[in-house]
Every structure is written in structure tokens, then in C-alpha cells.
């Protein structure tokens, strides 16, 4: 990374790290929610669905603020996490990952739901008559068949996580090397006299990363479709 300054490459590496954590963290929850929302009928399903989609319509600052209330040192969940596990979220990259995870969660759930809806239940029935238990069916039939959606969701969420600004800066502030991801670094550069060139480089970098993510997602989807013979 010869053409990036130390600050810029630190922001890049941090962004990738935060986005990776964010995706790994939200993946199992998104899968579970996609499953529940697609396959289960229960009271309050519509409410839960709306709740999952809230980050799409709320100002990111509001999400950051709510996270601050819940996961702050004196917040009900944050305090407990620190006492019991010694996990600190505020002003840390894990906190940044949590904020981006919440923001990109609806995107991930959406992609997974669409692919789950397209999985032929008849195939699960067939597996069932062959002796496969519920978990077995999910792991060997349902999950592989919804893999294109899971991958697409993960890549989209990763790209979105790279760009999350409002929720991150509200929740974990803007600390170089810890929470100053690409968009925050870009914003900081714009606030700094003579930072125009740096801002431009960071903008181009964000652009390249986003485009790369989209192309990668498309390539994956095509590969998996071919694997499934469609």
C-alpha cells in the first residue's frame, strides 16, 4: 500500500476488520431471524418483521444513540457485559462492529429470506422420508440451497458495514486506529485544512471497495447457481 499514508492504511485495515467482525457476528442471528420470519407463524410476527427493518428507516444517529443507551458502560446490557465477560464496546472496534451489524442487519435478513422462500419444501419432505432429522435437513438441504442468498446477504452487509458512518461515530466516537473507519477518516480529512487529497484518495478507495463487493457478490451468485444447475 505504497500510495496510502499510514493513517489511511490504518483506516482501511480497521474498516475491513470491523466489517468482518460485523458480518460474522450478525450472520447466525440473521439466519435465525430469516428462518423464524419465513417459516413460523406466531403472534407478533409482523411487529418483529418491522422491528428488524427499523435501521433502514431510522436516522443512523438514532440507532447509535439507542446503542449508547443500551450498551454504554451504565446501560443495562453494556454494564452486564463488562461485569460478567469484561467486554467493553464503547470506544472499541467491537463496538464499531456492533453498530455496523445492527445497521446492515435488515439487508442480510432480506437476502436470506428471499432465498429461503425459494427453497422447495418438497425437497425437505423428501429428506425427511429418507430419515433426516430437523437439524440434519436444515444443514444438508435447506442451507446449501439458500447459500446464494446467504452469500449475497453477507457480501452486501460487508460492503454496507465498510461505509457505515452515523451509528459508528455516535456510538463509539472517532478514535484513530480503534474506531476511525474509512468514512470516519474521510470525514476527518475533510475537516482538516489541507486534507483534500487524502479525502479524495479515501473516497476512491471506498468506491473501489464497494464496486468490488458488488462484483464479487454477483460472481458468487453465478457460481453457486451453476453449481445448483440453474
Amino acid at each position, binding site marked *: 500500500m505504497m500510495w496510502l499514508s499510514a493513517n489511511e492504511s490504518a483506516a482501511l485495515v480497521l474498516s475491513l476488520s470491523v466489517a468482518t467482525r460485523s458480518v460474522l457476528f450478525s450472520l447466525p442471528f440473521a439466519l435465525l431471524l430469516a428462518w423464524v420470519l419465513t417459516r413460523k407463524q406466531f403472534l407478533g410476527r409482523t411487529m418483529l418483521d418491522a422491528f428488524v427493518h427499523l435501521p433502514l428507516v431510522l436516522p443512523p444517529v438514532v440507532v447509535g444513540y439507542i446503542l449508547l443507551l443500551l450498551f454504554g458502560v451504565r446501560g443495562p446490557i453494556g454494564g452486564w457485559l463488562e461485569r460478567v465477560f469484561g467486554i467493553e464496546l464503547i470506544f472499541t472496534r467491537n463496538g464499531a462492529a456492533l453498530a455496523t451489524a445492527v445497521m446492515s442487519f435488515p439487508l442480510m435478513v432480506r437476502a436470506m429470506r428471499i432465498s429461503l422462500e425459494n427453497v422447495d419444501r418438497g425437497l425437505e419432505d423428501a429428506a425427511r*422420508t429418507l430419515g433426516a432429522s430437523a437439524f440434519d435437513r436444515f444443514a444438508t438441504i435447506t442451507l446449501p440451497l439458500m447459500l446464494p442468498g446467504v452469500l449475497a446477504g453477507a457480501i452486501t452487509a460487508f460492503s454496507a458495514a465498510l461505509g457505515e458512518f452515523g451509528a459508528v461515530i455516535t456510538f463509539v466516537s472517532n478514535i484513530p486506529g480503534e474506531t476511525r473507519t474509512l468514512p470516519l477518516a474521510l470525514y476527518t480529512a475533510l475537516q482538516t485544512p489541507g486534507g483534500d487529497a487524502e479525502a479524495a484518495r479515501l473516497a476512491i478507495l471506498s468506491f473501489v471497495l464497494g464496486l468490488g463487493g458488488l462484483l464479487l457478490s454477483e460472481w458468487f451468485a453465478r457460481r453457486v447457481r451453476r453449481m445448483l444447475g440453474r
Partner: protein
Amino acid sequence: MLQVAAKKHRGAFTLDANFELPTPGVVALFGRSGCGKTTLVNVIAGLLAAERGRVALDDAVLLDTDQGVDVPPERRRIGYVFQDARLFPHLRVQANLRYALKRAAVAPFVGLDRVVDLLDLGPLLARHTHELSGGERQRVAIGRALLSQPSLLLLDEPLASLDASRREEVLPYLESLRDQLAIPMVYVSHNFDEVLRLATHLVLMESGKTIAQGDLGEMSLHPRVRAIIGADAVGAIVDGVVLGTDASSGLTRVQVGLSVLRVHYGKSAPGTKLRVQLLARDLIVATEAPRHLSVRNSLKGVVTSVAHDVEDSDLIAIDIGGILIMARVTKAATSELALAPGTAVWALVKTASLRPHAI
């Protein structure tokens, strides 16, 4: 013995089924499309819940709503061949087959090699499922169901989505399955030809209800079965035993009731069981022993009933020694020959119109 009883309501549709099958045997669930055959099969498999029901195979009770027994489908050991095959698209043929084998609840009594051999799957093993023809898909689906080591096999119109020649390509495999593995089968079909080839018993369904059942020979003349298959296809299904082959003509002699039929059936050992359908429209009725005729087959018997059939013809039921057959003759012939219960007759049929199957 397979015992099935099921009651279920679904909107305006009511399933009310009840049948038994001596095992091993092949029971055909026969009826028009939409009469509830698939619903019943799904209840047997456990994929669909019945309001009241009982499914028992020999000593194993799989469902008994009165006793609160409901074994889940994955533990019923019932193989299911679906109409649309339902092969797993992300697995190749071999992996589809192994999927079943790996999850078998008992030590395999049919192994992969045996199934591959029986169904000729060797050339298909490395293929993707989307590279298979319709007939090949069904063969793989049958093989997969077998490899789950089932104690009962359900086949839901496995050939319905195939054209006639493809169907002819898969049928022999089903026959050899029936003959070589003693797995009881429930075969859903609305095609009487398939039933004729495969089944030992027939359960007739109409709008959700099982209205008649019995062995195939006796059911083949049931008035409601006749109504479904149409006048041209009506005919007794009779089972006979090979006596030997005529050296001069090459025809196989088959003992049926009191008489002997001569049929085209290549070489077959005496004692082999053969089944033929004597179509009512192919039979000629004579009141004297025929002479000077080219017809090779004359079955001696006694008229048991004369009933109005279609248009201006009658359906004459003839007992040929414990076996009932039917002949369609014009009403004019009925009165001219004075056909009535008790009349001694000879039923004539051309060898060329008989297509025997092994059973």
C-alpha cells in the same frame, strides 16, 4: 399386513380411507385425478396429519391417533418416490443415493451396488441431477428411496410425468423391484396399464373415499373400475401357470382355470406365473365347441350373468373354472345365442391380442 385407515377434512374435501394389504404385495391406489390418492399416501408417510387414523405394518404401529401414537416420517422407514422425483439439486446422483444410505435406520439389506445394478444407475452416478432425463430421474429417485432401507415403499404416480416410451423404459425396473425385493409397495396411479403390470391388489378411490378393494383379478371387473378405465379397456385380468412351450409353434401354453391359453412369451420354465388381460372387446362367445377357426384359444365356461353394457351391447360374465372373465357382445348376439345365466359357452380369443406379463 399393511393396515391403513385415515380420516381428514380439508375445506370441502374429505378423506375417508380404509384398506389392508397382505405383505409382501403391491397395492394400487387407483382412481381419477384429484380423488385423494396423494393425500392418503402423504398420511401414510406421515407428511400430512390425519384427524383420525391408523397405519400399521406387520407389528409396527406407525400411527394410531386413538392411542396417541404418531411416529415422525423420518423414523417410519417408509420410502417415498414422488411424482416429481425431488432429487437434491445440489448433489450429484451418487451423493443423492448415499444421502439415503447414510441415514438408514437399519443395517442395509439392499446395498448401493445392488441398487445400481437393479436400476442400471452406473452410467448416471457422476451426473448432476439436471443432466438426467425424466425417466432417469425417476430411476434415481426409486434407487434413493430403496437405499433408505424401507419396510414399505410408496410410489406416487412415478411415471405420470413421463411420455409413453419413457414409461415403458422405467416399468421393467419396477417389475424387477417387485420380484426381487420383498418390499410391500403402495402404487398410486390413474393408469390402468401400470396397475395391470405391477399390482397384486387394487384399492379403488373416489372423491376421497376408498370404495372397493380386493385382489387385482377380482377388482378388474368391478363396475366402478370399468367406468374409470373406459369400455375399450375393460377386461378380466387372469393369472395362469406356464405348462410348457409348443416346439412347433413356439407358443407358450398357460393353464388358466379349466382351459389352456396359448400366448407369445418366449421361453419360460413350466411353473412360471403369467398374467394376461382378456379384454372384453377381444372375446368372441360361442355356444358350441368351435371348429375350423384360426383362433388358438377357446376357454370353456358357463355364463353367470348378462348385463347391459355400452350402446347396443351386453357384457357377458363367464366363469371359466373359478375365474370370471367378461366378453362384450351385441344385444342381437345375446338373443340369437340365447345367452343367459347357466348357458355353457366357449370364449375365443386370438393369441395376437394377448400380451402376457410375468408376475
